[in-house]
């Protein structure tokens, strides 16, 4: 009657759940960030119509819960003939939703970024792409780091919603173990500990990155 013994015996399903969560989270974070940066670059061209569309889309994403987007992709889209597996729909929802938030964070820092830097770069003959890559991006990225870190943790937590659309991640694994062996307390303690561990690692990583940014002299931007 050792409950922790049962948990240990079921370690494989927790391990698989952890891998699934990490995979979803890392792909969503990397692709989402790339989308955020790309949209930020597009905004540099100041095309009115395009900017409006981007901002409208991002505001919409900020006003709906993540689960509604996941529902839309997984349950809603098959009605118009687009069927996806739960995993794909979940990952796509994570990428779209968090891409919008990453963009919003970068944009808020971009607006605070001093125009003097850009004028200086223009007068030196930098192209728009070079200015963005060499001057704007490193600066806004490092000043946005704390906010991005927060958003990464929210992204990690949002992966748990995907167990509702039947993706087998940590929470689904814990739920499976508890319903098989009737030990909900231990099963969910393990799940919570795993999430806690990942987010502590994330916070450490963000701290490291901001030290690195400070070393490169990008704290004042």
């Amino acid at each position, binding site marked *: 009657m050792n409950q922790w013994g049962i948990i240990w015996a079921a370690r494989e399903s927790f391990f698989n759940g952890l891998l699934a969560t990490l995979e979803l989270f890392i792909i969503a974070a990397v692709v989402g960030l790339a989308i955020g940066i790309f949209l930020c670059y597009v905004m540099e061209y100041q095309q009115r119509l395009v900017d409006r569309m981007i901002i409208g889309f991002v505001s*919409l994403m*900020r*006003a*709906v*819960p*993540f*689960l*509604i987007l996941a*529902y*839309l992709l997984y*349950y*809603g*889209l*098959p*009605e*118009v003939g687009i069927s996806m597996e739960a995993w794909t729909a979940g990952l796509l929802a994570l990428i779209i939703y968090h891409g919008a938030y990453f963009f919003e964070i970068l944009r808020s820092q971009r607006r605070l970024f001093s125009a003097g830097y850009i004028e200086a770069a223009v007068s030196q003959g930098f192209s728009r792409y070079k200015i963005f890559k060499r001057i704007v991006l490193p600066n806004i990225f490092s000043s946005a780091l704390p906010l991005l870190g927060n958003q990464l*943790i929210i992204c*990690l*937590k*949002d*992966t*748990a*919603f995907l*167990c*509702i659309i039947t993706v087998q991640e*940590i*929470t689904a694994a*814990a*739920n499976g173990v*508890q319903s098989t062996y009737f*030990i*909900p*307390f231990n099963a*969910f*303690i393990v*799940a*919570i500990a795993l*999430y*806690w561990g*990942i*987010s*502590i690692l994330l916070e450490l990583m963000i701290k490291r990155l901001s030290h690195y940014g400070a070393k490169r002299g990008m704290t004042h931007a």
Partner: protein
Amino acid sequence: MDAMAWQLLIEGAWTTLWISGVAIAFGVVIGLVIAFIRMMKIPVVDQILVVYISLARATPLVTLVLFLFLSLPTLGINMDKTLAAIVALTLNTSAFNAEIWRNAFRNFPREQREAAESVGMRRWTYFRCIMLPQMWIESLPALVNEMSFLIKGSPAIAVIGVVDLTRVTNRISSDTYEPLSPILAAGLLYVVIIGLLLKLQSMAERKAKRLAR
């Protein structure tokens, strides 16, 4: 979608709103109490609160709701699903609110306290009449922001069978076999609710900016 579906959606929206509303009301007050206790820096208690805040911020709502609803009965505490949902949302939002309030405590100018003491004001009177109103205005934008995060997280309570605005779409589509329109309609209702909160937030921000120090 017919009138019946809309009625179900409105009922779902109401469930989401009142459960989140209760959690928000408790969460703001509990957050203030936690921040207050943390400012006193009592050993052990302070560390426990730090662990609680860190844990609550890292735990997904879905996991927390499932944990409370399924595991508390094994410890002899029985909760119905609505109560479990409220407790989970409150535990979550309190931790975030505690950080917001603590920030307001820490940024509060010292001179006001010195002035209050020099006219012989008691500590409690000082806190109630001078600190709290200013901290409230100062923190309101962040608190409202947290409220909209809570509402965006609230679909998690659907996992234990509370029929909220997200879950109700399943119920409608199991009748009509047309899931797309109820989901879009639910999304629209969320946009209205959260849009109002964002509006409130920008109003609160304007008011906080006027608070000259």
